């Protein structure tokens, strides 16, 4: 095919287009973040990112991310497992529902929780009686983060588990292996890379979540402000250096995640080639 030919002006046009696009929309803004963050000198930058509220926001973000990853890993494995290894009625519906957080706007996700756990909800008096506060508190932020990152891990696992089929598990079961042994010895090695990859994606998304968290947080500085919310707060207060300095933390985390992702993809592919 003409298009596949490894020469000609088309190839160079396409490459230029992609490079220009990436530069304009990604590279330039990233460079701008760094420049602005450092515009008032390295000392201002360091004091910005070591600001007590910035550290607290970063810590809260990490906390929410860890919870989201933990919960969604367990849920994701369970969901992927039951959707691929068993046949039952309503499978399609469950499968569709898992994807809901991707299609629903995060703002709505936030509002859903406000309605479910807020003062007007029938759950509120019960939870209040136990002294549990969800809305405008850390649990709410964690809930919202879990919600928006809900499908990431199960979606990575489902194709792998489907491709694997149930033969190996059946073979192990026929030899008398228990469910846990089967999972540990047969299923887990198979989904390991997909699982790690899902965790990376989940982490990236959880760290950056803004919409749903924004609705539930109440923006209490040092208490319920995550890093993205904190950045927005600084930005609205015309503290550009502070905002961009805090942003740089997120950017660094994102780059770390990106590198991890590349490594995992590479390793996973290599292992897949061996065990094909």
């Amino acid at each position, binding site marked *: 095919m003409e298009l596949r030919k490894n020469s000609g002006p088309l190839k160079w046009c396409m490459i230029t287009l992609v490079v220009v696009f990436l530069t304009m929309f990604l590279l330039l803004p990233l460079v701008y973040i760094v420049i602005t963050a450092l515009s008032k000198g390295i000392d201002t930058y360091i004091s910005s990112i070591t600001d007590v509220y910035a550290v607290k926001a970063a810590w809260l973000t990490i906390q929410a991310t860890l919870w989201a990853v933990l919960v969604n890993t367990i849920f994701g494995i369970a969901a992927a497992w039951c959707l691929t290894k068993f046949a039952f009625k309503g499978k399609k519906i469950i499968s569709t529902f898992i994807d809901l957080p991707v299609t629903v706007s995060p703002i709505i996700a936030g509002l859903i929780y406000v309605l479910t756990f807020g003062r007007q909800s029938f759950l509120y008096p019960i939870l209040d009686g136990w002294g549990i506060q969800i809305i405008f508190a850390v649990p709410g932020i964690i809930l919202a983060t879990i919600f928006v990152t809900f499908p990431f891990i199960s979606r990575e696992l489902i194709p792998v588990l489907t491709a694997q089929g149930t033969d*190996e598990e059946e*073979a*192990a*079961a*026929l030899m*008398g292996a228990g469910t846990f042994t089967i999972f540990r010895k047969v299923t887990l090695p198979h989904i390991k890379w997909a699982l790690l990859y899902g965790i990376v994606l989940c982490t990236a998304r959880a760290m950056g979540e803004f919409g749903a968290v924004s609705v539930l947080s109440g923006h209490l500085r040092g208490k319920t402000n995550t890093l993205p919310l904190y950045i927005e707060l600084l930005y609205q207060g015309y503290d550009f250096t502070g905002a961009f300095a805090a942003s740089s933390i997120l950017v660094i985390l994102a780059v770390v995640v990106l590198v991890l992702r590349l490594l995992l993809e590479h390793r996973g592919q290599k292992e897949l080639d061996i*065990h094909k």
Partner: protein
Amino acid sequence: MSENTSYVELRHINKHYGDFHASKDINIRIPKGKLVALLGPSGSGKTTILRMIAGLEHPDSGEILIDGKVVNDVPGSDRGIGFVFQSYALFRYMTVYDNIAFGLRVKKTPEREIKERVSELMKLIGCEGLEKRYPSQLSGGQRQRVAFARALAPNPQILLLDEPFAAIDAKVRLELRTWLRDMITRIGITSIFVTHDQNEAIEVADEIIVTNLGRVEQTGTPSELYTDPATPFVVRFIGNSIPVKNYDRFQYFEERGKESAAILRPEFISIFKKGENVQYSKSAEEGVVEDIIFRGSNLEIRVRLHGNLLSAIRSINDPDIQVGETVDVFIHRLFVIDGEKVTMKYNQSLREESVII
């Protein structure tokens, strides 16, 4: 098969998948130490039967007996079976050694005994030195052997094989068939394998259970199925069959029931060059050769007789026949199918001649 020798037995087994009736009142008896084939077209319910024996599926009604005990509620892992999956289902992330050792490790066998057993099995399957390989690093035939060894490792009483040769290319398949047959005979383990390939079943099995549309059509040795088929399905399914409607037009087959039809097999038909054979020349009919297909070891001759295109086999040592040539066609016998009844009918001239002699 007499009742007291049956080792695996299915009594009035029924199984549905939703609206689909996969097994209809299945009754099977499998004697100890036999190698039995479950033969049928896809969707005939043969794999369902195998999976029910293994405990991977559960019948809606009926009883499964192993060694005289009802095992319906016994989990598959406690039924003393080894299972070889169609795709082998070797554990991809384990070495050959770990694959074979898996069943023994689950049973908490001491590692020293495992080592002995694995090396014994590796020797048996002729795969010594491959212990550290992963399944992906083996050839199709080796994978099959490893799957076989893995199933045998915990010393099962019954070996179940689901389409054991389906995933292997033609040449290795023939080799493996013989190998598996020898292996199973040597170990003397009761074995049941599923196949849709009649040649495979005929060559490998001591007994064949023919399934169709969820039912068992016939059970018997390969030669019984071949010479004495019980149902029209078995006639059509086993061997090459040539359906003929107007078989009463053939000489010496004049009698014909109202609704009946006949099935011929290539081996029931002899084709001779004019004047080649004296014995049948008087009672043979003339047909015209339409096609000759070279089959390597022999020739398939297609000849038109009373509007039917018949196939017959001729040796490559026989005198040459050309397309368009008029030849003598002699039909030795055929199966007459009348509703669900099958009867063998011989060429009348054979009787007359024997009377004369």
